[in-house]
């Protein structure tokens, strides 16, 4: 069945950081009303709600949130559902919302997410995040998320024969770059902070899971984000600057131990990206910039390879050679990424969409990508277990 073109009407995002005074509902509401206010529609136009949240049960004692949220924000009685796919929760929600509109089930929907991990504290937050590894065979050894990416970093070093200390220096550049951009993003957790890190600052910060240090890691974050989607025909009637969804892809894998050495090639990401490129009728060369899931420095490097931007084993060189910086051929994470902007897990995917849409509309004044027409997002859920890629552009699909 042919799919209809789908476009973004409006986007919203809370400031990322520490929100002890706002609930999961409050954070979503704030993001939603920012998106709604620029969409030129009425509440009654929104037919369904797609909500991403990872661990509301553990951080706030709350499950079954989508219905409560719909009611609290004035969308009384519409079908509402929650998606959980670890860090990719709101990206899976976004793709499902997109498919529903594309296939004519709804004309206009809202999708987004919220999470409160900073407020939960480090011990609960680390345990909550670790629920995304295999609960039995990986959790028994106490494997955490920094641990997963530390395992990947050592494997990458071995597989591509880059000495670990040399690799770590290149990984540090990812942190320096993303903190530099996060420090100028007013909605970032580290706005006005860590904008001028040096390699030694990253290497000498506290070791979390060797070899990864504190500055190799994204922070624990509270925040919310929301996107209003509609059929392109609907969108063109109500807003002057719709941003079109050109392609989406999703794939998955079992636990890290089932993926074996493929973990450093992130095969599900390769499949998801290829699916998105095929739907959009584009190739990696057509992409002007990407918002990538840099939960850890090594994660950004692995992602740029698996998505097809660089050869396997060459992603670390790309950041060292300036290719992924704002003036390079492929700016990666101009909004600061998860490392600089923050990572409110269930809200992260649609906050990447927020950044890409703002950038494509020319509203990303503090770190603009010149002449950007096509942008892409990449969200990873769990230990390479769920991968979602989305391609957006200022013109309809060719």
């Amino acid at each position, binding site marked *: 069945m042919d799919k209809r073109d789908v476009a973004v009407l409006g986007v919203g995002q809370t400031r990322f950081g520490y929100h002890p005074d706002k609930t999961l509902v409050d954070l979503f509401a704030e993001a939603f009303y920012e998106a709604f206010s620029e969409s030129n529609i009425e509440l009654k136009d929104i037919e369904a709600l797609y909500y991403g949240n990872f661990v509301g049960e553990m951080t706030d004692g709350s499950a079954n949130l989508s219905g409560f949220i719909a009611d609290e924000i004035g969308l009384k009685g519409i079908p509402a559902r929650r998606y959980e796919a670890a860090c990719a929760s709101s990206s899976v929600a976004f793709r499902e919302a997109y498919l529903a509109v594309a296939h004519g089930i709804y004309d206009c929907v809202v999708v987004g997410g919220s999470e409160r991990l900073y407020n939960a504290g480090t011990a609960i937050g680390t345990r909550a995040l670790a629920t995304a590894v295999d609960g039995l065979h990986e*959790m028994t*050894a*106490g494997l955490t998320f920094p641990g997963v990416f530390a395992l990947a970093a*050592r494997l990458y070093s071995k597989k591509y024969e880059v000495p670990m200390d040399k690799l770590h220096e290149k990984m540090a550049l990812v942190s320096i770059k993303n903190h530099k951009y996060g420090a100028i993003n007013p909605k970032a957790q580290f706005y006005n902070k860590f904008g001028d890190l040096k390699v030694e600052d990253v290497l000498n910060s506290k070791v979390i899971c060797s070899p990864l240090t504190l500055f190799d890691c994204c922070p624990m974050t509270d925040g919310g984000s929301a996107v209003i989607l509609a059929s392109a025909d609907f969108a063109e009637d109500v807003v002057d600057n719709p941003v079109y969804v050109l392609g989406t892809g999703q794939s998955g894998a079992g636990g890290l*131990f089932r993926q074996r050495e493929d973990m450093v090639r992130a095969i599900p990401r390769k499949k998801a990206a290829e699916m998105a490129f095929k739907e959009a009728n584009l190739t990696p060369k057509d992409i002007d910039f990407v918002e990538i899931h840099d939960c850890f420095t090594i994660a950004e490097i692995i992602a740029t390879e698996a998505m097809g931007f660089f050869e396997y084993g060459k992603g670390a060189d790309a950041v060292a050679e300036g290719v992924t910086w704002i003036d390079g051929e492929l700016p990666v994470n101009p909004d600061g990424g998860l490392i600089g902007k923050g990572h409110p897990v269930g809200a992260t995917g649609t906050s990447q969409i927020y950044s890409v849409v703002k950038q494509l509309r020319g509203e990303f004044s503090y770190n603009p990508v010149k002449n950007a027409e096509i942008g892409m997002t990449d969200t990873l859920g769990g230990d390479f277990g769920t991968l979602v890629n989305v391609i957006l552009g200022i013109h309809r699909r060719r």
Partner: protein
Amino acid sequence: MEQVTFKEFYDFLLEGKLLGLKCLDCGAYTCPPKAVCDNCGSRNLERAELSGRGRIATFTTTYIAPAGYDKEVPYTVAMVELEEGPWIVGRLEIENADEIGQDLIGEEVEIGGKEYPTEMFYPDKKRRVVPVFRLLRTF
């Protein structure tokens, strides 16, 4: 079709035995066990005891623990490639992993099991059995 429950898998591990499944169609081993052959998806499987030996594929020493594991830090988590092919996650019995660094990769280990108290969210509510890797040579 043969099955091995997680309880059986960890009961055997505590006795020093590594239990898996052998595929009668493609010959591949699946460990830890699951519903189908990890290589070809067949359900034509038989129980098999693996050699319990393998090599370190990668590792990390954890200094910041999740709630429930804080009394155990620092601890070293490793992934081991078993002689029969599968990889498993466990703890490497070593105190100076970070000093040795990448040279640990490829080292031969023997696999056993060690019992720890369970924690609030762990699926086994009675105990937590951790696969433990012992290096065959000392550093």
